[in-house]
């Protein structure tokens, strides 16, 4: 039996402490231990982006990060976007309004990557959106409606601001 490690991660503003095996992936920790199943897993090679979360302000693929590496950090998952509020987050609302999803499996990752983009950039162009979500695969939508959702979200964020209280400090992906 491997030695378990103690970790403490702030997930969606709440501190979560646990003993985990060093090899446990952040994606599995979020899903199986923190019960946040909105983070999805679609591959084993860091290609699909279904598992994307925001960690310390960066969009990251949680299937490629160990839970122990997230120790002491802040993680925002899809559940955190509208947590504690009646209304959907503007990015979520835009995905609903502009049909940015079909099966919904890639959606959490798409929304969080888009959120990260919109925190970085105002008035995003179609090309910038395509580039930003190029690490997130969707097999259903053909991307058009996702791009329209992100454009719409860009407007909504301008007008309504970002309702997330504890604003993660967004950093440009290295």
């Amino acid at each position, binding site marked *: 039996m491997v030695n378990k490690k103690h970790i403490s991660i702030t997930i969606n503003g709440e501190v979560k402490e646990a003993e985990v*095996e060093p*090899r*446990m992936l952040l994606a*599995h920790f979020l*899903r*199986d231990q923190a*019960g*946040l*199943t*909105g*983070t*999805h*897993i*679609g*591959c*084993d*090679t860091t*290609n*699909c982006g*279904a598992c994307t979360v925001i960690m310390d302000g960066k969009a990251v693929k949680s299937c490629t990060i160990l839970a122990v590496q997230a120790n002491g950090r802040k993680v925002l*998952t*899809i*559940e955190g*976007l*509208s947590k504690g509020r009646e209304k*959907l987050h503007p990015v*979520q*609302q835009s*995905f*609903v309004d502009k*049909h940015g*999803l*079909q*099966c*919904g*499996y*890639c*959606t*959490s990752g798409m*929304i969080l990557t888009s959120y990260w983009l919109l925190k970085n950039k105002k008035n995003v162009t*179609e090309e910038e*959106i*395509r*580039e930003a*979500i*190029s*690490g*997130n*695969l*969707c*097999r*259903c*939508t*053909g*991307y*058009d*409606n*996702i*791009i329209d959702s992100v454009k719409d979200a860009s407007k909504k964020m301008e007008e309504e601001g970002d309702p997330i209280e504890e604003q993660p400090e967004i950093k440009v992906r290295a």
Partner: protein
Amino acid sequence: MVELSEKLVKGEGRFVDDIQMPGMLYLGFARSQYARARILRISGAQLTHKEVNFDIAEVGEGATEGGSELLKHPVLAKDYAGYVGQPVAAVYSDDRYVAEDLIDSVDIEYEPMKAIVDPEDSISREEMYPGVKSNAIVDRYFGDDFTPDSTDIVIERKMVNRRIATNPIEPRGVVAAYDGNKLTVWVSTQSAHAIKEGLSEALKMEPDRIRVVQVDTGGAFGLKGGLFPEYVVACYLAMKEKRPVKWIETRREHLLASRPGRGAVAKLKLFAKKDGTITGLKGEVIVDNGAFTGGSGEFSPIFIVKQLAGAYHLPNAYVRALSVLTNKAPQGPYRGAGRPEAMYFIERLMDGLADKLKMDPVELRLRNAATETYTSPLGFQVEKSRPFLESAIRELNYEKYKGKENVGFALLILYHATFGGESARIKVEDGKVRVWTGGNAHGQRHDVFIKTLLNEELGVSEDHVEVMKGDTDMLAEGVGAWGSRSSMVLSSAVIVAARKIREQIEKKQGKYTVQALLAGKWDHYEYFNYDRMESSLGANLVTADVDDYGRVKVKDCLSYYDLGRVLDPDNARGQNAGGAVQGIGQVLSEELSFDEDGLPLITSISDAGVLSADLVPRFDIKFHKSESPLPSKAKGVGEAPTIGVPIALSRAIELATGKTILETPIKPEYLLPVEKE
């Protein structure tokens, strides 16, 4: 409509891997490392065929009855492994990481044999299994032999659509639980009823002891209509241990051992008069079945050959349909399932003929488009296509592109899998209208159009309606969501069920009101029978450029499809764009390739060629609306772009490079410009 989307954007969908149960076991599989080998000894496994001695039952899209016992896919390999990735032994633990470790502790001793990889070689090789008479598991001729006119022009082409993984972003998965009498199975599927039927047959269990429940399904594209070995083992283990069992496929397992689609070779000769009028078709189509039955490899070649007249008047045809054994995972349906192959073959022949005659390809299509509905010598009814083609040329603005751009044009006929009909149940209780249907959506948003239809039929507003997921305990029978059928037969089942509910209320209360509907308790199950195969027409126009490095840039990608009554235009647009990306992927990048020993060369979803947003254009769809004869008046949606886009794109690339394109995907090196001296 908002309900499901709102859940999904909050991460509150309930997909199969989201299910947690006390005492749950995680299942893992040790898989064959060889494409073809005798298995001499297995050690360190918790389950092998000695205990789990079942075969896969063939159910779902493209399933065929009967077939040789020898060719059935064993749930766990017996003494022979037929493809890399075939499940040989199973392990389990209450920890998913430990289950994975246990896979590595299984030791399998093999005696490798020379694999059969190329479908064209298969027939001339030794039989794959002792006892099998031929490696051709299907070998039939369609049409009647004919003697072409000696003055006819002949276009002879070999065309290939290589294997593609279906690659839904959610992999396959199942959870099974057993209470001592009843087995309950939660599954990511297109058809809860097909899974139930298959499990009952494979496990030899009475159907009423099995309940299959569909959970949110993260895409399927044909894959998830059938039953898989892993599901049977999960059920077996749940019953044996009396604990819930979960199995979730990894992407790597998906690429190795789910049922990929396409995998067809055509060698055809098209005959025509000098004015371009086609006179006949001869040749053969070979489908790469893989090592076992259980997918759609027996159905595919026949289905392909019957469609080979395309949307044209074809007076004579004689074509052989073959399906052959190879050391690969069984072939299965992938979005279009035989339709894209058939249209690719005939349409690429048409382009070849146009070039030979120095005729405009669209002009040639006009000359041959069926002017009356007729039955082709290969078996299927071809609908009158000339008027549609004329309007497609206008709507897609072909004249604007012609001669100026590298423009490809495709005319297609989409055969909907309407046969078999579909079921629906409407149950009203406590002011809620709940609806179950036999076809299970996995991204097509049946909930949206079902609510529209119920509003029309019963005047009930959408917030009173709840569209339920597939559940075999709530619905007696059902078929499944595939073959562009749901907007036709599923919607019709819902309409008829709603009308019957209305009648019930009228009978009891004299007249129908929404108040009476919501205040009462009503329940109606309807099986909408339909034994015909309907069809619809479509056209695509694609332009592309190719740079000096052989990189293809798809510029315009336009669709014009006859959807009859468009039940949900937003979703129809979304499905069109999604299908078009798959169509582009088929031409540019998507392939499951193998080396000469049958070892798969593809290990990630990106290697498999699934395209990202930066590599595709924006899409445009125009609707042609000639209503279908069904109560819903709609026609099928899902598969048209995967049929038409590869054809039109291949042609556009051909014009851009001057190189004949007869294979998908195109190998990038093939497009490199020839060095000029």
